[in-house]
């Protein structure tokens, strides 16, 4: 117990140690996070009127980001499956970064739901009267928190074992890894069901939402990891092979292909049928009369995604430059498509046919940026602490020693 507390304090202290780039990055993130906090305080005082949301478009940027981040949390599972099921060696020592990212992503997702609430201080009502299993939102609360706990346990356990320089007991984390795989699928499925279960919103009321959700998540999550892993590689001496990155590239390529295919299926069904239900899709892709707010966005997203996918198909993206380029495009493309492109059109037109467009306010955007900054801050700290521990530079028998030679972990 004492040892565990020392571990935590040492980690905490370690998170304040770094070179100027580290400080600069952390300072930047802290400032943005504080700006977000400031904006949220304004929202807390004046209500959600500080956002662009209305009775017509009652969910906006927050829920869009929430949706996207639930997807990103899947990145972990795309590393876990190859490693634990297919025994992929290249990815083996990278899994932990995926899991840590899942932790950060879920924290962000939960924050996004919280800031979306009109009465956040009544959060405990969830504990007192939980409309389970009828409300999909209660399912989401369970699966998201469960996934967070699972990943915290797995990462925490592995890192703590490394700190104690002892071999992790398989029994203590293997079962959880496999539960986490199924659980990761469930967080997407449940989040998709949140939308697709609403009969009054034809744009969402489609069975393809959940699979599309999974596919885009399995593309954007690993794409994000490809980028972060390179950052880790260049700022630490942790070995990350190009082979590992290329394995991830394959995963991204396949997932993105499926995503684009499903998108095509949806577009076909909507537009070929051309029933009264097409209005939202029309608003998204072509605009309804003078109302074209999302049209440039969605076409940007489709453009980015298509170019990214083509790049991924071509051998040039075996080179890291092109691969990174493709990943960046894809992350942005999916963010638009899965975020605003999925949430907002369902509200336009309203079920009574009124058309009111939605534009996020500055305050709302600041809150969102703040949450992102906070999430990245959490992730940076987690990684920052993890690497030395895995290397044995910080362990139970010695204070943090940056110059110690990396020691292999006991296997």
């Amino acid at each position, binding site marked *: 117990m004492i040892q565990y507390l020392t571990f935590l304090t040492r980690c905490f202290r370690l998170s304040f*140690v*770094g*070179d100027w*780039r*580290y400080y600069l990055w952390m300072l930047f993130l802290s400032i943005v996070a*504080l*700006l977000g*906090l*400031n904006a949220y*305080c304004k929202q*807390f*005082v*004046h*209500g*959600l009127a500080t*956002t662009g949301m*209305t*009775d017509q478009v*009652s*969910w906006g940027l927050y829920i869009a980001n929430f949706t996207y981040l639930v997807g990103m949390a899947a990145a972990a599972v795309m590393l876990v499956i190859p490693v634990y099921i297919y025994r992929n060696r290249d990815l083996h020592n990278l899994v932990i970064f995926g899991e840590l990212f899942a932790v950060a992503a879920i924290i962000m997702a939960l924050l996004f*739901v919280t800031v*979306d*609430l*009109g*009465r956040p*201080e*009544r*959060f405990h*009502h*969830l504990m*007192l*009267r*939980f*409309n389970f299993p*009828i*409300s999909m*939102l209660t399912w989401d609360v369970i699966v998201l928190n469960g996934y967070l706990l699972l990943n915290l346990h797995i990462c925490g356990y592995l890192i703590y074992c490394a700190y104690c320089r002892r071999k992790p007991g398989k029994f203590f984390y293997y079962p959880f890894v496999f539960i986490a795989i199924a659980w990761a699928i469930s967080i997407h499925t449940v989040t998709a069901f949140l939308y697709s*279960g*609403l*009969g*009054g919103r034809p744009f969402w009321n489609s069975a393809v939402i959940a699979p599309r959700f999974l596919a885009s998540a399995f593309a954007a999550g690993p794409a994000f990891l490809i980028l972060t892993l390179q950052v880790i*590689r*260049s*700022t*630490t001496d942790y070995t990350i092979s190009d082979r590992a990155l290329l394995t991830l590239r394959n995963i991204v390529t396949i997932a993105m292909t499926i995503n684009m295919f499903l998108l095509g299926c949806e577009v076909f069904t909507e537009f070929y049928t051309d029933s*009264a239900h097409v*209005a939202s899709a029309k608003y998204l892709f072509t605009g309804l009369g003078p109302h074209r707010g999302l049209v440039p966005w969605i076409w940007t997203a489709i453009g980015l995604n298509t170019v990214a996918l083509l790049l991924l198909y071509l051998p040039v993206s075996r080179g890291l430059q092109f691969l990174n380029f493709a990943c960046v495009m894809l992350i942005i493309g999916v963010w638009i498509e899965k975020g605003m492109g999925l949430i907002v059109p369902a*509200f336009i037109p309203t*079920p*009574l*046919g*009124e058309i009111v467009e939605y534009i996020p306010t500055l305050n709302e955007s600041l809150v969102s940026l703040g949450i992102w900054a906070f999430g990245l801050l959490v992730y940076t700290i987690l990684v*920052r602490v993890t*690497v*030395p521990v895995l290397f044995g530079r910080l362990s139970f028998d*010695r204070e*943090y*020693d*940056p*110059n110690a030679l990396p020691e292999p972990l006991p296997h």
Partner: protein
Amino acid sequence: MSVRIWDGPSATLDDPQPPRMTRRSFLRGTTAAAGGLAALVAALNPLREFTQQDEFTLDQFLQKHYKEMTPEDMEKALARIRAEVEKRYGVRPHLRDVKPRAGVEFVYALNLSRCIGCRKCVYACVAENNQSRSPQIQYIRVIEMPRGTLDTEKGNHHYTHPKVPDINHFYMPVQCHQCANPPCVKVCPVEATWQEPDGITVIDYDWCIGCRYCEAACPYWARRFNFAQPDLAGDAINPDMSYLSNRPRPKGVMEKCHFCLHRTREGRLPACLEACPTGARKFGNVLDPNSEVAQILKTKRVFVLKEEVGTLPRFFYYFDERYPNSLDPEAVKIGQAIGCFPGSPAPEALA
């Protein structure tokens, strides 16, 4: 080959000891911590604008869900709300918790042939139910519909003729349909909204967490959210109020039409019905076979909006014909022209 981020600035290779706390680093750490704290305080500054809007009282925080309150709990809650209303608006409200009556199921029937789109119901509702005036919250939306469709997407929500009705349109008021299979109730994560035995779907404004999932789920766009603190002047307050209906709402919670349950459960009619100059609105207990609504459901060709979403509304629309088709002279003439007249078997084939 690479730079290591954890190289503390004071760590050099000939210094085998891990960096220890020196006075310099201590000072630096303190300054940083102080700076961070100051920034945090600055970020939290807007909270100071928080005026105690009677919102965060401990009593309210500890208040139980409506269905779990004992009569004493309810009395306490009512007393608290009365005091709050009086303090805020200077009006002593007649606040109570009106319970549903046994053997009653309310339905609404709206005669589309009569409605002239004057929006009198809309404003009567706002006045009756203590809705926020700015931003104005309205429970009833009257849609101006072109002839030949019931698709509200083709309607106009914001018609502004100096005079209604416009001869080429008909008017379709929409409010909460008090569905018998309400998706809004299904989705609420905290059971802040539920269906009462008399068919009215209500909201406990002290329980709602403001997630707006119900607003997304409602196929009739019947729900309204308090995005800002409702703005309501004391002289606009209707002191006749009940817990589950028109007591003033705080910001950040959902509200909607509740069939004026503080009136209707006590035998009066909804405010919108009383305000309607044409008698297009009919309301009553459908379980009473002699009620007007029961008669209408039996004899008129009623329909519900968006039947396909399966919500089973308790709000019916109908077009009122002068005669049943079989007695309508026009219809009889047309029928005879194609070789059939009322009462005769349908022609076999008109091929």
